[in-house]
């Protein structure tokens, strides 16, 4: 199409074969005339013009010498080009044999490429072959004859020279006799011939290997991927990426989930069966850590803080234990209910309803974030000041776990591991999720189902909500009440205004129960 437009521009009118031919012919003549009018601008044309001229008889020897040298230059150029191309083809062969399982097609392709390239190099070399004049220049530069040779070749058309041209010709021939011009341009192997030989050996060895084996690079990659070293290198990175992804998702979904209803959470919980297995493990780890932490619970005041802060004032340790027991029972019953719900839903969905692990993870994360108020209250005991001034607790099953965690493996503690375990095991307190420990608790301490959430209207709870967020990011630390956290808590407290009514009911019942126990 482009050619047609060009031809049309050259030959206005109808496009036809004859017009096309005449247009191309005119264009070619135009190019040739331009070349002829500017001979100095095109050294190739200039040189060819010299070659076509008749030469003086006394310079025939010089011209023959130049032709011989030109053949050698051509041979060297061809060898160099072919060797370079051959090296690239060998590199391609090595790459193919290393990676590809099927070699036949690749071999045919590379053989074709090699043949085409060799032919192209041949054509290109012949097209750009040096003329006699150019050869004379090269020989002159090699022999250091100070441009005598090209001048003589340039003036070779003068048959009966006189004066300075004759002197110049004689001078050139006299100096040329003292030299061995062919010695300056021997046919020699290219410099990269050694490299090509090594590559040939490598290719031969590789193909011999490939007769009975798979592609070595693929095998190597598989072996490497299985090695412990690589896994040890990449697994932390993968975990870190997963964490980052989870955090991102949590940040994205935090506000919408804060107003989410329970039905959605129940649906999501049905898809987290795999998570529960992992959480069980985490819970076990957390239990171990908890055991060690609770070993000195009576001695350390901080352990007493981990116990559910009872109502206002400074309750004794026993009272706290009782309170926490009751709380944990209630919480576990709630989690059991939620668990049973999720199991039923998952059964209803059947195998098709199961999602992938990643999706489950994301969904679990969303649920976790939606239950964050309850989780945050779990850490409240950790973040309470040592004076033990209790504030009303949420009906979380983990506060009781602080006292009975040795047996129940309640996940709560000061360390990050405990907090993680708390995030998984303790979610059953208010949400539809639960843990094995909680189920056990429910079996041993059956309580009525309680609402998932309670109203946390006290400013202290809001404040600790903020603290929980801080500990979730992995900075396990004691709570420090400062002005900034309060401000943040006030901001985050807005999320808790949407706490379902059953949580409030649960807290009321909890406090009533605690008061009854006291009295």
């Amino acid at each position: 199409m482009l050619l047609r437009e060009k031809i049309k521009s050259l030959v206005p009118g109808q496009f036809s074969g004859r017009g096309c031919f005449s247009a191309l012919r005119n264009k070619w003549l135009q190019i040739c005339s331009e070349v002829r009018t500017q001979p100095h601008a095109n050294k190739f044309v200039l040189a060819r013009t010299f070659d076509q001229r008749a030469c003086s008889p006394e310079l025939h020897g010089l011209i023959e010498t130049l032709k011989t040298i030109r053949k050698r230059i051509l041979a060297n150029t061809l060898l160099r080009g072919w060797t370079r191309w051959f090296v690239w083809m060998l590199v391609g062969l090595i790459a193919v044999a290393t990676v590809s399982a099927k070699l036949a097609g690749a071999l045919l392709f590379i053989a074709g490429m090699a043949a085409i390239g060799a032919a192209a190099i041949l054509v290109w070399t012949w097209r750009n072959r040096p003329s006699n004049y150019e050869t004379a220049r090269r020989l002159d530069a090699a022999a250091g004859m100070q441009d005598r040779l090209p001048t003589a070749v340039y003036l070779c058309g003068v048959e009966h020279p006189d004066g300075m041209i004759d002197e110049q010709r004689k001078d050139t021939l006299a100096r040329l006799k003292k030299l061995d011009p062919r010695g300056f341009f021997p046919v020699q192997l290219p410099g990269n011939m050694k490299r090509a030989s090594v590559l040939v050996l490598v290719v031969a060895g590789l193909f011999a290997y490939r007769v009975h084996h798979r592609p070595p690079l693929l095998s190597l990659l598989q072996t490497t991927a299985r090695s412990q070293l690589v896994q040890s290198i990449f697994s932390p990175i993968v975990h870190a990426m997963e964490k980052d992804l989870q955090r991102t998702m949590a940040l994205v979904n935090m506000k919408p989930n804060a107003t989410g209803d329970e039905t959605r959470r129940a649906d999501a919980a049905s898809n987290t069966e795999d998570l529960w297995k992992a959480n069980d493990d985490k819970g076990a780890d957390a239990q171990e850590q908890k055991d060690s932490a609770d070993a000195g619970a009576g001695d350390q005041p901080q352990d007493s803080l981990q116990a559910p802060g009872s109502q206002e004032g400074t309750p004794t340790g026993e009272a706290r234990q009782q309170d926490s027991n009751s709380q944990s029972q209630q919480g576990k019953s709630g989690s059991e209910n939620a668990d049973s719900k999720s199991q039923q839903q998952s059964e209803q969905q059947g195998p098709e309803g199961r999602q992938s692990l990643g999706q489950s993870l994301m969904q679990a994360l969303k649920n976790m974030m939606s239950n964050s108020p309850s989780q945050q209250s779990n850490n409240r005991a950790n973040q309470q000041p040592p004076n033990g001034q209790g504030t009303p607790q949420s009906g979380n099953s983990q506060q009781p776990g602080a006292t009975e965690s040795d047996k129940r493996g309640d996940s709560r503690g000061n360390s990050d591991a405990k907090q993680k375990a708390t995030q998984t095991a303790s979610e059953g307190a208010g949400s539809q999720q639960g843990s094995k420990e909680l189920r056990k608790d429910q079996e041993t301490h059956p309580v009525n189902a309680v609402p998932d959430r309670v109203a946390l209207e006290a400013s202290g709870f809001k404040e600790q909500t903020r603290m929980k967020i801080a500990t979730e990011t992995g900075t396990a630390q004691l709570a420090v009440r400062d002005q900034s956290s309060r401000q943040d808590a006030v901001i985050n407290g807005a999320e808790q205004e949407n706490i379902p009514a059953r949580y409030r009911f649960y807290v009321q019942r909890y406090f009533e129960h605690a008061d009854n126990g006291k009295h």
Partner: protein
Amino acid sequence: MTSSVGTEGQTGGQPLGQQAEFLSEKMSEVRLEISKAIVGQTEVVDGVLIALLAGGHVLLEGAPGLGKTMLVRTLAQAVALKYSRIQFTPDLMPADVIGTSVVQENGDGRKSLGFQPGPIFTNLLLADEINRATPKTQSALLEAMQEKQVTVAHTSHLLEEPFFVMATQNPLEMEGTYPLPEAQLDRFLFKLRVPYPGREDLHDILDRTTQGNPAVVSPVVNGTQILEMRKIVRTVPVAPHVQEHVVKLTMATHPENRENLLASKYIRYGSSPRGAQTLILGGKVRALLDGRYNVSMEDIGALMLPALRHRIILNFEAQADGRTPDDLLEEIAGKVCAKQK
């Protein structure tokens, strides 16, 4: 010594090759004679001889006391040419250079205006400290240098051939000087820089000038022979690639040439065609002096700086960056050679 070019200036029908050999021998003798008085400065002496045989003029630039005037005087003695010297000063008038019409009385007692030739009517003119004269006086040399004639009172007077102007200027004392206009600079074939002599040369100078008698320089060639040599020089062939190199080199000095960023950045005006002519003509002389019958790329490279350094005019940016014509030309030549290879 047999000479193919007779003392009377006749070629005697000798082959051109022999004449070329004679030229080479004679110039070697001239060098030898000059070296009796001038210590070292071989490049300057070669440049002066090349300019003499090429039919051009030379501008010598150097500090005082480096032997510029001595070189011109010695050359005049070695080539047996008429020699005159003009000390250029600010109050020098053109008539003091080219001559003037005066009232003359003939044998009949009749008075008429006659032309009194100035010191420019000579073969070898030394214009000492040419940049100290006013531009008006400097321009009096323009016609003489290019057309080899002077015009006084509507009458043109031809100068005697060979006419060879050697001007000197001091690059240090620029106060009270008038820099030569570009038109006049372009008329000088070469601008040669006279360097300070080396340690050994200085010892030699002291020995020669403070002991014994001053050296006596004997004439080797005359004006007629020089004119014949100039004809021989022009028959030397030039290969096309050498001429192409000269053209590219000259064009590369032009700031309009977009391919050469160096020239467009630092050069205000490039070389005139006289620069290319100088390179070819000077290359021919250099080839003959070297015993060759063709111009080589080496000749062009050797003559590039003296032939082009005064023909390019640098811009303000080059002066601010401390660039000189010499280093710019060398860079340009390097790029042109690299492109040709």
